[in-house]
Structure formats: structure tokens, C-alpha cells
């Protein structure tokens, strides 16, 4: 890291050698976690991710090396006190089954001696934040909640005393794919506001790319194979190990990095008509444009139907002609989402809409291919590492 400001967390040659084991589980890790960022520790199972994370809050005492929090050496301070400054979320969640949701969330504030009023307000605020209605859920017991709801409570509990740092160990690992995706999106939304410094462990590279501001790819012994932004890691993997860990489908993964709003959205390339346009007017417009289809927008300028010339029948209602626009891509969707949409569409074009659902332009396959080329060119310019070919 070239930043001169002190990172929120800094690990200095942190090592854990479990008794009776030949090799250290974590072997001299140096890592700086900048304030307000999500840093992902990702690597194969057993490479030492959990051990590394748990040394940060000293659930596991390091064999050697040092831990700095906000510049302060916390390697030997009182561990219980230290942990109250860091939120902690684990895959098993670990809610107290004999306490209500409110009591669970209040755990750390109570330890810190907050008064009842402040605790109660905070509990309600957090339940709101994680999308649970306080009136409905605060007095429930964990067993009366679904897995996804429990994980939300787990996150709320970890944030209760507003710690600057959160440690998360495969927090969404035990949920089904749909719930996981929802929890990930919600968490990213919350993070936009709270800007915590987060160390997030996962073994899932896709989750790492999605969630991380920075990713540390770990090899055996928690040795850092590459530590960089998702973009750089995807475009220039530092070694064969990283490349192998990224796996196939790397191009599609890169498409997850760019959003529709970041690329060139073409306006006016395809003719559009409104609900009042007659078939004859439409035919003229289509012929002038030299295109195969035109796009019918409804009264609110939302994309409605793709209409080809043969669909234009003066006797038929225009709102029944052609094919429905299956789904529109939001300008915040990833290029990967847009690609899916194009493949569904007969003419290979995705209609892009703004936040209100109104037509904002179109995106076609060429644009996406050009984007991929540009990413590759950038990677070659950076020149730091191996560039993965188009074999994916």
C-alpha cells in the first residue's frame, strides 16, 4: 500500500503455529486494511482464513507478530475489551436461543453500560436498518425466525455498539443462493451508509469479487498470493495460483465488475415510437432508420415491445404487435446481467432504463465485446502479470 495514512487494521508478520502441527496455519501475514473498505480474505478451505481473522480479535492468540488497530498495538491489550470495539459475525450466527431478538442485539451495548432508553432506541434503529420491522420482531426468539432473518439479526448485533471494525467469517455461507444474494445486496447498501472497515472471509471467489473493495487471495499458510482491487486481480492475476483460483469463466466475472452506467449506452440507434404512432408512421420511421426493429414505448416512456416490419399491420392494435420486452436492464445492473438480457432478446439488444423505468437507450453485444477488449488492453498496459486469454 502506498497510502501514507495509518490503516485501520495492520497485521505485522502475524503467525499462528498450532501446537503439535508441523507447519504454521498462518505464516507471517502482513496486511493493511484501509479505513472504510471491505477487504476480503479468500482462499481454498484450510488455508488459514479463519485463523487469520480470529487473531485480529484475539479469539486465537498469535504465536508471533503484531496487530495494530487504528495505529495502536493491540497484540497484548485486554482481549475482552478489544473485542467490544469490533463487530463479529460468523456463519453459524450464534444468536443466543434463550434471549429475544432485542436482548440479543443489546448484548454489547449492555456490556458497555448504556441506559435502557438508549439501548431500546438503538435496537429499533438496527432492526430497521437490516429490514426487520421492530414491532414485529423485537420480542421474538431466534427459533421463530427464518435463516435469512437470523443472519440479519446477527449483522445487527455485531453493529450494535457502532464499532469501527467488523469481522465477518463466511457470514452468508449457510444460506441458500437466493437468500445469500439478497443478504449480500442489502449488506452492500448498508455499507454505503455506514462505511465500516470490514474484514470479510469467504471461500467463494464470486462473493469476493462482488463484495470486496480489495481482495487478498490466500494460499496455504495464509500467504498472500495477491492483494489488490477486484478489477486488477481479474485483469492481471499475479500468478498461476491466482489464475487457477479465479477459475474459468473469468471473462464473465469481469463483466460483473462493470455496470451498465459505466459504458456507452447508445441513444437513438434504434427507432422508438409512442403509443399514439400509427402503423404507417411506424413503417416510415423503420425504413428511414434502416433497422430491423423499432421499440414501442408506453405512456410513461417505458420500453414495451420490439416490433419488426412484418408485425406492422394497420388493422391491428400496435400494443399487441411484435414481442414484449422481456426485462429491462437497470443502469446500475452489471454487464453480466445485460448480457443475459441480450441473449433472451431476438435482436441481441438490451433496452436500458433509468431509475424510474423510463427508456434510457440500448446496449448491444458489440459494446460489451468492446468493453472486454478495453479491459484486456488495460491489463496489458499494466503489464504486471499474466493475462488470461480468451479461452474462457
Amino acid at each position, binding site marked *: 500500500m502506498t497510502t501514507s495514512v495509518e490503516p485501520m487494521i495492520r497485521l505485522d508478520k502475524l503467525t499462528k503455529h498450532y501446537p503439535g502441527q508441523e507447519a504454521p496455519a498462518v505464516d507471517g501475514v502482513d496486511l493493511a486494511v484501509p479505513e472504510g473498505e471491505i477487504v476480503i480474505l479468500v482462499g481454498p478451505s484450510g488455508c488459514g482464513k479463519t485463523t487469520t481473522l480470529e487473531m485480529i480479535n484475539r479469539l486465537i492468540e498469535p504465536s508471533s507478530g503484531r496487530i495494530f488497530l487504528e495505529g495502536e498495538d493491540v497484540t497484548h491489550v485486554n482481549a475482552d475489551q478489544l473485542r467490544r470495539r469490533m463487530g463479529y459475525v460468523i456463519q453459524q450466527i*450464534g444468536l443466543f436461543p434463550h434471549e429475544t431478538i432485542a436482548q440479543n442485539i443489546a448484548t454489547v451495548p449492555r456490556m458497555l453500560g448504556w441506559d435502557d432508553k438508549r439501548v431500546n432506541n438503538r435496537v429499533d434503529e438496527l432492526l430497521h436498518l437490516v429490514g426487520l420491522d421492530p414491532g414485529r420482531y423485537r420480542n421474538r426468539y431466534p427459533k421463530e425466525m427464518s435463516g435469512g432473518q437470523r443472519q440479519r439479526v446477527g449483522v445487527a448485533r455485531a453493529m450494535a455498539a457502532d464499532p469501527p471494525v467488523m469481522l465477518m467469517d463466511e457470514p452468508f455461507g449457510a444460506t441458500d443462493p437466493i437468500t445469500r444474494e439478497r443478504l449480500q445486496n442489502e449488506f452492500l447498501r448498508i455499507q454505503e451508509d455506514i462505511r465500516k472497515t470490514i474484514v470479510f472471509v469467504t471461500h467463494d471467489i464470486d462473493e469476493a469479487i462482488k463484495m470486496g473493495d480489495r481482495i487478498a487471495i490466500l494460499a496455504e499458510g495464509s500467504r498472500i498470493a495477491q492483494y489488490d482491487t477486484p478489477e486488477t486481480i481479474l485483469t492481471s492475476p499475479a500468478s498461476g495460483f491466482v489464475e487457477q483460483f479465479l477459475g474459468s469463466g473469468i471473462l464473465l466475472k469481469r463483466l460483473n465488475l462493470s455496470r451498465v452506467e459505466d459504458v456507452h449506452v447508445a441513444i437513438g440507434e434504434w427507432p422508438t415510437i409512442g403509443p399514439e404512432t400509427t402503423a404507417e408512421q411506424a413503417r416510415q420511421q423503420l425504413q428511414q432508420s434502416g433497422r430491423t426493429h423499432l421499440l414501442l414505448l408506453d405512456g410513461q416512456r417505458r420500453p414495451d415491445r420490439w416490433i419488426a416490419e412484418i408485425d406492422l399491420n394497420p388493422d391491428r392494435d400496435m400494443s399487441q404487435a411484435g414481442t414484449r420486452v422481456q426485462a429491462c436492464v437497470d443502469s446500475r445492473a452489471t454487464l453480466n446481467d445485460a448480457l443475459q438480457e441480450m441473449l433472451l432478446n431476438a435482436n441481441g439488444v438490451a433496452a436500458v432504463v433509468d431509475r424510474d423505468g423510463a427508456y434510457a437507450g440500448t446496449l448491444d453485444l458489440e459494446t460489451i465485446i468492446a468493453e472486454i477488449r478495453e479491459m484486456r488492453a488495460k491489463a496489458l498496459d499494466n503489464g504486471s502479470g499474466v493475462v488470461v486469454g480468451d479461452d474462457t
Partner: protein
Amino acid sequence: MTAVAVGSVDSRVVGRERKFLRRARYIGVPAAVATACVAMYLYVQSQELDSIESRIINARNIWTAAVEQIEIALWATALTLVVAVPLGIALTRPWARRVTPIIIAVANIGQGVPAIGLLFFIYIVLIRSGSTAAILGMAIYAVLPVLRGTMVGLQQVDRGVVKAARGMGMSKQSVLLRVEMPLAVPILLTGVRTALVLTVSTAVLAAFIGGGTFGELIISGQAQGRPLAVAVGSLGAAALAIMADWVGGIAEDLLRPKGL
């Protein structure tokens, strides 16, 4: 959605059924015991008792026997709890890993020794008071279920819950008191209930070393050839044991933390 709805209706029905069974047990068990006792009372009333029988079977004797038996059982159970619960906690701490198997082995052997032998040993070698010796003997006998209940109760606590608690900065001691113990309570109470029943029912053996109890009625009835006295003593002992189990069951229901 429908599957979920059906599922919850099912579980609600099961819950209601369980509640009904529990109510039936709360009322049914004492009612059955009372019926048996009243039947025995009416039968004894209808008999001409000879002088030996009426010396054994009388209200004062029966009352004393019941009180003695309950006293021995309660003291023994209390003594057991005081010893076995802290021991169980200690043995589940990581630092005790080495000694735990040894102590469990000893406790198992203790359980294997015949109660009557243990009782005579204590009486003859250690304590020359019948009821005190009986209390000590019963307590030793009941240590194992409570010890096991405490240990299993603590060991079955979800490791993730303990890890989360430690990770939030709770001290080891408050994790034990606020998390581990409440979550161990249901299994611990099962052990206590077993111990209570065990001490109440084996307390009749105290009669052999002059400790009184319903065993007294049984022994004198047997020695003097009065089967009616044996029957009354046996019924009394059985009634107490069943009621001990009943009380234990209610305690389990009441003391189980909500949310489990």
C-alpha cells in the same frame, strides 16, 4: 407458501397436543397416587388389625416414615447438586481435559457399587448416625446422573453460540453464567430429576441402618410376618417416588428457558 402454512399448522397441532398431555400429567399422576392411597386406607380400615399390625400401621408411624424419607432424599439431592454441578462445570472447562476421563471413570464405578453395600460401609466406617449416613450414601449414589447431566448439558451447547459470545467481548465467566448454564438447564434438570427419584426410592434402605423411612415398615412387617405392613410401606415408598418424579417433571417445564 402452502407447504409452509401446512407445516406451521401441523406444528401448532402437535404443540397443542403436547400441552394437553402435559396438563393430563400434572393432574393425572397425583390423582392416581391419591386413589391408590385412599384405596389402601379403606382396605386397612376394613381389616381387624392385631396388636403388632396396629403398632406398625398407624398414622404417626406413616407420617414419620414419609417425613424421614423426604428429608433424607432432599438433603441428599441438595448435597449432590452442591458437589456435582460445580464439578461438572469444572470438568467441562478446557483446562480440565486431562482429569475429566479419570473422574468420570471413578463416578461410574461409584454408581456400580450396590447401594446397600455403600450404605453399610459409610455407617460402619464413617458415620454412626443412621440418617446422616443415609444422606451421604444417597448423595454419592446420585452424583453420577447430575454430573452427567451438567456435563452433557454444557457440552451440547452450540459452539457457534459460545464463539459469538466470546467474540463480542463477554468474559469467560459471563459466557458461563449468561449463556452456557441457561442453555444447559434442560439437560441438567433431567439429571436432577433422575437423582431426586433415585434418592427418594433408595432412601428406604436407610431403614437397615436405623434411618427410619418406609423401609422401617417393610422390614418390621417382613420380620414379624405381617404382609399388610409390608404392603403399606411399599405403597408409601412407591407413592413418594412417583410424586418426586412428578415434581421433577414440573420443575423441568417451569425452569426451561423460554425460546428453547
